[in-house]
């Protein structure tokens, strides 16, 4: 029996290595994508154009504007002459945000009264708008403190920010762990979902079914090589993330790999399940995408899971990608305790057991 499974494993690995398409799609493209995506989704806002409309020529107003000018974020400053120009400038995206200072700004500050400035942001790019609001807020806060000191008024509360785990808020640090989880899943899905469907299409599957191999043996012989290939691809991504993208890995590699094997077992279980339903590779791919789109969207890869409605969060417990993103982030950014691993691996283990059993069962049914 082991002899038969072993032969099947060797064959699967050889077939993947010798087929140029599989070799490229499965082994080389995910690490490559990791690097491309990592740069593409960088959330840092650079080359921002700030529009300034001021009706005040006072010292304080000029001081505030010069602080904006001095910030490295705002690469270019566009002075607007009329109130009406603001709408046109935002509409045409010639500026990303507008700082508007009223005619009484300097006078009020000199009198020691509170004064307002207005920030107009472009809500069409809501993410960028939020970040720019944050930057601008900090500049105004610094300006405030200095004004207060100059007037001899003590500042009552001062916020001192320290960001843990990602002190410089480097977007790559938070993007790479999530990407790593998603790309590993894609490799596992692809290898497993296509393998049975491809053999069915080529007619070699019947050849396997008339051999002494039992359905469970075929399933193991298909799952193990898929696991090995996905692990190899994941290792390449880990090394790239560390060497090229410079993202530190703080947690236990051992725990990461242990939970990754369970993660991939769940992924491959789902892939083989889809594959045993499909008659052709095309059907397998369509089935895979129908599953993968929501699974990735709900995984916390793009939006926080905690913000989703309760029922969706409950449903998400059955989403292995969600669990592994938590683990991956924990390993990358902090040395997470073993309880966290356990908390997120057991649901994946359940998924793996259920899907692999269902796959074997379906398999036997489709045979007969």
């Amino acid at each position, binding site marked *: 029996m082991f*002899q*038969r499974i*072993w*032969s*099947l494993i*060797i*064959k699967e690995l*050889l*077939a993947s290595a*010798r*087929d140029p398409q599989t070799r490229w799609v499965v082994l080389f493209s995910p690490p490559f994508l990791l690097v491309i995506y990592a740069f593409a989704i960088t959330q840092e806002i650079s080359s921002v154009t700030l529009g300034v409309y001021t009706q005040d020529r006072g010292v304080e107003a000029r001081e505030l504007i010069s602080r904006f000018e001095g910030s490295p974020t705002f690469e270019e400053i566009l002075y607007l002459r009329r109130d009406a120009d603001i709408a046109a400038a935002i509409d045409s995206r010639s500026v990303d945000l507008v700082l508007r200072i009223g005619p009484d700004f300097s006078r009020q500050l000199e009198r020691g009264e509170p004064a307002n400035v207005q920030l107009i942001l472009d809500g069409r790019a809501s993410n960028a708008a939020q970040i720019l609001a944050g930057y601008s807020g900090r500049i105004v806060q610094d300006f405030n403190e200095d004004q207060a000191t100059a007037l001899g008024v003590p500042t009552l509360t001062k916020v001192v920010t320290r960001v843990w785990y990602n002190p410089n808020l480097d977007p790559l640090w938070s993007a790479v762990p999530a990407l790593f989880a998603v790309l590993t899943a894609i490799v596992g899905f692809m290898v497993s979902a296509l393998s049975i469907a491809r053999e069915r299409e*080529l*007619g*070699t599957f*019947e*050849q*396997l*079914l*008339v*051999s*002494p*191999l*039992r359905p469970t043996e075929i399933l193991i012989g298909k799952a193990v090589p898929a696991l090995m290939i996905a692990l190899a691809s994941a290792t390449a991504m880990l090394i790239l993330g560390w060497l090229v993208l410079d993202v530190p890995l703080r947690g236990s590699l051992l725990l990461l790999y242990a939970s990754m094997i369970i993660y991939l077992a769940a992924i491959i279980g789902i892939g083989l399940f889809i594959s045993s339903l499909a008659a052709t590779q095309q059907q397998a791919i369509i089935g895979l995408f129908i599953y993968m789109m929501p699974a990735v969207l709900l995984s916390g890869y793009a939006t926080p899971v905690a913000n989703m409605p309760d029922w969706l969060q409950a449903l998400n417990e059955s989403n292995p990608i969600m669990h592994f993103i938590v683990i991956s982030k924990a390993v990358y950014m902090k040395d997470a305790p073993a309880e966290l691993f356990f908390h997120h691996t057991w649901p994946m283990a359940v998924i793996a057991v259920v899907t692999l059993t269902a796959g074997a069962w379906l398999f036997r049914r489709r*045979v*007969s």
Partner: protein
Amino acid sequence: MPGPLIQIDQLSKRFDKGALAALDSVTAHVNAGEVTGLVGPDGAGKTTLLRLIAGLLVPSTGKITVNGLDPVTDSGAVHRIVSYMPQRFGLYEDLSVQENLTLYADLRSVLGSDREEAFERLLGFTGLAPFTNRLAGALSGGMKQKLGLACALIKKPDLLLLDEPSVGVDPISRRELWRMVYELVDQGIGVVWSTAYLDEAEQCARVLLLNEGALLYAGSPQDLTDRVAGRTYQIRHIDTDRREVLSEATKLATVIDGVIQGSRVRLVMAEGADPPNLAPLNAGLAAEISQIPPRFEDAFMDLIGGGFRATSPFANREDSAEHTMNQVVEARALTRRFGDFTAADNISFEVGRGEIFGLIGPNGAGKSTTFKMLCGLLQPSEGSARVVGLDLQNAPSKARGRIGYMAQKFSLYGDLSVQQNLDFFAGVYGLTGKSRKDAISQMIETFGFADRLDVNAMGLPLGYKQRLALACAVMHEPDVLFLDEPTSGVDPRTRREFWTHINAMVANGVTIMVTTHFLDEAEYCDRMALIYRSKMIASGSPDELKDRARASGMMDPTLEDAFIALVEQSDREREAG
């Protein structure tokens, strides 16, 4: 007299630079008002030539004109007079017969009363009128081809190109297709009918015989057949093993080609050679040899220099399997239902050791279902299937270990090398250690793979692919070898080589189960079961089946005649109640 409909001049087509030419400087013509057969095995270049004529491919060198027009530069004008029916005609399986016709009428802009008239004519012509509401996907192979033909004829063409219209079509529907094509020819349409079945060539007015991209012969099939006139013989009343007689006969230098026809052996002699002396062939005392009319295939074999002559290495292979059981394959009241539909109904037979048993019947009649139940690919709803006494349901893995299986399309792993394919199948069949090494090296030696071990299976020539598939199926010395349409579309020489190996294995006590709709292949069987409408309507040796057709008044029936007679008889009995 006007010039020919199609004129082909020094036409070549290469798909890749440096690759073998799919067509190599072919010069030929096709006349209007007759059927031109485009005959040759798979990969001979038939489809390429049809696509070039239809203007779907651009020639590498050379020229074609259709009615004086260039199919590439004048594609619009050519498409108006040419109808092309590809191998799998573009029927929409989820649309009904009527909806398919309407769609093609729309595409061809056949409108108004013309359209009504065309529908009526074509539905009558094809006999599809009762089925207009049936989904195209639910039609039988023969009916699909008829519907495809109807769609191609919506607008009456000057030239009709048919790419292997008889593939997957049972003999009865095949005869109807021919009748329809003759009617079209009578209306002055030029028809090009491509086929891998050499017996169809005899029905054409002219043939273009292609082999490996080269035109071997152009002219009337009769003229080609005449080149072997007086050189074809049949040995009858053999009371020894006819397979050994054939093997002995093909060792003679004067014998160009030999095949088994039921209990008889057919031989083609070299020019000027006398018929062989029967005594050294060990054919038995009652055996006699007589001259018979030649067939197109005899002439084809003569043209390409004869059949496969070497003896099979299997003939000398020592046989280590112990032969205890005599009933090697047993089907007991095998029944399989899919929902309301009974695909195989109460089928029983036994096959002994060293016997070749064929399952024949039209597509969809239940022969594949029965075949699959016997090799463990399908669970029977009722009844049981046994191989060497092992029930395929109770001991599937063990029973499957005694089976070898070779699928229609040589299911090998194309990306793996010859060596890797052999390694894999040896491992899957549980061969280990020394026995594995021995089995693999024996196969390499037997089939001459030594200098091709590192070649990917996909890149092997057809004959080698077939050998490798056979090697992988028999490496573990199975008691039974299952063959699913083993040589359909394969050129006659490779087919003879294949059967030489099979015959040698049979001599060593291997049992062969073969399913085929290709009746020439059925001639090799010792016994066969004819499956029709899910039931076994007849069984026996090829000669016994032919005798039953003779009983219904036919003079010298072929197996195909016998097949049709038996099916028609069954239809009559069913209608009678």
